[in-house]
């Protein structure tokens, strides 16, 4: 399979990977996908005064999943919570050069982020 430069770069050197070293009460966590189906994404958001102060992820999945998660973590930082997920999965796929058959990976990343945002709303 061929990969876009954006995917290769983020897969090789993801900048936002890893669980933040913060107490659990300062994080909201969202998760989507399943290990046994090949993609499992966890997002950690640190939200201060209704603004996303930090976003990190962990991912088990293909290079496109890792690249999409890294891209979205970067884009979300600094946004108000209610505007956290501005990109549609298709825009995310276009931005990263994901092939059509990998659109599902963008959806899983979106689901993980939405799961975290839901967790925030419930607090």
């Amino acid at each position: 399979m061929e990969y876009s430069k954006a995917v290769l770069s983020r897969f090789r050197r993801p900048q936002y990977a890893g669980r933040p070293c913060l107490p659990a009460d300062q994080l909201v966590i969202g998760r989507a996908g399943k290990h046994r189906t090949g993609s499992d994404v966890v997002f950690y958001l640190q939200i201060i005064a209704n603004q996303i102060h930090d976003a990190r992820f962990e991912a088990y999945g293909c290079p496109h999943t890792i690249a999409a998660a890294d891209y979205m973590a970067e884009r979300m930082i600094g946004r108000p919570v209610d505007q956290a997920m501005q990109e549609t999965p298709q825009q995310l796929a276009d931005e990263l050069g994901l092939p059509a058959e990998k659109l599902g990976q963008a959806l899983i990343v979106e689901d993980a982020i939405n799961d975290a945002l839901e967790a925030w709303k419930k607090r």
Partner: protein
Amino acid sequence: MTEPGLPIFLDYAAGTPTDPRVAEKMAACLTAGGLFANPASSSHVLGRQAKGAVENARGQVAGLVGASRREIIWTSGATESDNLAITGSARFHRDRGRHIVTSKIEHKAVLDTCRQLEKEGFEVTYLSPSSVGMIDPQQVGEALRDDTILVSLMHVNNEIGTITDIAAIGELCRERAVLFHVDAAQSVGKLAINLAELNVDMMSFTGHKIYGPKGIGALYVCHSPRCQLEPIIHGGGHEMGLRAGTLATHQIVGMGEAYAIAEAELESEHDRLLALREKLWRGLSALDGVWLNGEPQRRVAGILNVSFAGVEGESLLLALRKLAVSSGSACVSASTEASYVLRALGRDEQLAQASIRFSVGRFSTEADIDVAIAETTRQVSRMRELAPRTAAADGS
């Protein structure tokens, strides 16, 4: 042997570089002044010289496997040899029976040929391997029926390197007057084969797995007892009426030379490759969550197939781009399918996908293995650190 900027080549089971000694012999068959003439042109000396080179190569191939020269039929490769052996014998013997026995972990050249024969009214039994990839002779015996005409099994599995007991299976088949075809693409030149002592009726060979050129292969067709086939390519009656088409002298000479070199170097090469493979396994097995695929002892020297728990297959393969290796998965359009061989062994989908076949060969060095161990360890660790901590353990 690795050129700067190129990945380290550890994919010899997929195809080998042509040995320079082979390439030199081949080049002498291509241009004017060399053995360029059609070997079928018996009316002039140039044609007769080319035919002499073809027959010399036939003897070199026969010599490596303990066959006689007249039992070797040139083909375009092991895929064609498998097709000719299975389709040719099935069609010739269709009035005697329509049942064929093979296994679930054969090469696609065998499986797809069998599926085609199913469409033509044949019935095929696909044997399941053990969890370490072995086909037991007893399983074969139990699968034989009164209408069984053919058993087709590979000598060495191309993905996991396990060795089938073709001596015992051949004996069973001969007792029951069932033809026995063996795909030896992965074993010839790596294991000693003496067809004079084996009850094998047909055996498939290729050039490019043992440092010969691509596009050339051969089929051994036993003369005593005589194995009869229907040709599948028509047009000129070449190769004793079994395979029509102008003989590619340069390819044939290359394959012959490759087989002669393999015969001379088989023993020393085996020991060296075994040492490299064992070094690689020792290095990789220092990681946690690493599984060897295939029977630990009854494996060909050059192949090591390993599954890595907790990493995703496609990411693993991309992360290992400094190594030219084969993956346990094949990207098929929208999905990444796990290897059917590893799935047949009972590996789950994710573990089968996160599998790598390392295969060492003539030009592999200890330094290559050191880099392979270091790079694989680094990348597997990185992938695992990226993954959610509970990914492998939560059963999700």
